[in-house]
């Protein structure tokens, strides 16, 4: 298969979105760029034949997490206030950038020298159906699935309690979104 | 039970929807430019100037007293008094408006001008299609455009017009009687030639004598 053209385009879109999300000045712009990055990744998954993962990525990241981030930005007055400096010129900031560069260098070296990466040559795209994924989730991975469900419930309740305003005796119905509206 | 009210509402709107094709009562809209409702007699919209007879210049009732101009709340009336005078319906010499403009865009149809006019010269019209594509000249109505005959008034507001006409006839009769009495008195006081005075009696109403007398 090689590096196909569509893969290249999607990779550039994802990376450009990521860079923009981490460098733009206004927080809402960052969030929107982040969405581009998430969507690009979802398309990459689809391109790699992982249909279910790609669509789940789209549904969860673009549909939910991006919206959550945007809500958080607006609720913390990040949407209108002073745009913060794109990169703080503090020593800590420079150190962070250097650390990231070093991590990238190490990772690239690892990928370049790894025998696995070189061996993974063109394989025919695996034909997975939704049915197989469903059976895998419900049979082989049913315990992790239940744990995840429990964790999501706990996170839901935790998020509601955290975001709930103190000193107010309102019933804790609804979810984080509802809280967001009230705040 | 939840949803009951919504179903009742849905039934009602469905009856409206299908009923509008068969029942007249469920489609009460008038298709305006083609169909028109007859306006009630009391409907009024915009002032116009009345004149008697057939000549708008000669018969114009307005004497340019400028009361309406002063009373008009949005100040949409503009009057310029004439230099010369002409006789009014009872024969008195009165000024007349050289310019009488009403700005349609400013008029708010309050009818105060009608209420204050002592000469029954201004009345409310029923026309409502006043829009025009010329927003400067087209919306400023001049005396010529505003003048309408008394017959028109009688047609659009018959009850009101009858009342006004009756009053004016009485006024005219009174004025004529007064003129006749004055003429008779003058004739009696002077008493030079009775024949001459009686010959002048009819035309006395139109002569300056009455105006001077007033």
């Amino acid at each position, binding site marked *: 298969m090689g590096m196909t053209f569509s893969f290249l385009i999607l990779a550039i879109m994802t990376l450009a979105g990521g860079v923009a999300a981490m460098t733009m000045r206004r927080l809402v712009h960052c969030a929107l760029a982040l969405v581009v990055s998430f969507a690009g990744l979802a398309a990459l998954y689809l391109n790699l034949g992982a249909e279910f993962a790609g669509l789940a990525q789209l549904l969860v990241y673009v549909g939910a997490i991006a919206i959550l981030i945007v809500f958080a930005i607006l609720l913390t007055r990040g949407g209108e206030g002073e745009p913060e400096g794109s990169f703080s010129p503090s020593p*800590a900031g420079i150190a962070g950038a250097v650390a*990231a560069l070093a991590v990238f260098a190490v990772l690239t070296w690892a990928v370049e020298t790894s025998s696995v990466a070189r061996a993974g040559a063109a394989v025919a795209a695996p034909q997975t159906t939704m049915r197989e994924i469903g059976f895998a989730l419900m049979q082989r991975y049913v315990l992790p699935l239940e744990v995840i469900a429990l964790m999501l419930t706990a996170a839901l309740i*935790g998020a509601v309690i*955290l975001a709930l305003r103190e000193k107010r005796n309102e019933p804790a119905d609804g979810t984080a979104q509802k809280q967001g509206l009230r705040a | 039970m939840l949803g009951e009210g919504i179903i009742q509402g849905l039934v009602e709107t469905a009856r409206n929807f299908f009923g509008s094709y068969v029942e007249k009562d469920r489609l009460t809209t008038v298709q305006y430019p083609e169909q028109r409702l007859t306006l009630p007699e009391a409907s009024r919209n915009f002032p116009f100037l009345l004149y008697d007879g057939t000549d708008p210049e000669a018969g114009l009732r307005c004497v340019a007293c400028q009361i309406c101009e002063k009373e008009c709340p949005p100040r949409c009336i503009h009057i310029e008094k004439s230099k010369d005078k002409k006789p009014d319906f009872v024969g008195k010499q009165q000024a007349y408006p050289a310019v009488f403009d009403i700005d349609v865009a400013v008029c708010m149809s309050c009818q105060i001008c009608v209420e204050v006019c002592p000469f029954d010269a201004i009345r409310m019209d029923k026309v409502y299609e006043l829009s025009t594509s010329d927003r400067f000249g087209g919306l400023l109505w001049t005396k010529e455009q505003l003048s309408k005959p008394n017959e028109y008034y009688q047609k659009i507001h018959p009850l009101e017009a009858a009342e006004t006409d009756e009053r004016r006839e009485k006024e005219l009769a009174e004025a004529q009687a007064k003129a006749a009495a004055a003429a008779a008195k003058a004739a009696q006081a002077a008493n030079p030639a009775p024949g001459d005075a009686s010959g002048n009696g009819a035309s006395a109403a139109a002569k300056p004598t009455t105006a001077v007398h007033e």
Partner: protein
Amino acid sequence: MTPLAGCLLVSALLFSIGLAGALTRRSAILVLAGIELMLNAANLNFIAFWRFGAHPEFLTGLIFVIFSIAVAAAEAAVGLALILAIYRHARTSDVSEITEMKG
């Protein structure tokens, strides 16, 4: 370059971008966004290894990504709720200004 190496490189780059953002940006929300990017980079690795690995029929990488997405959603919800709570308390979401542990 093999497709697997390409995927891994993109993922490494994305991870570094996320790391750089998380370390340098001062807004707590963007720090969280950087962490999300790093998580996503890891997911891309899982997908790549599943796709070009020896046994794609076992679906291990795919299922892991699905679980990872679920965990990321929970993490984002709790993390943003925390940021909101901190903002309400300290009136700022700038991580360099939130220096006190005192309540």
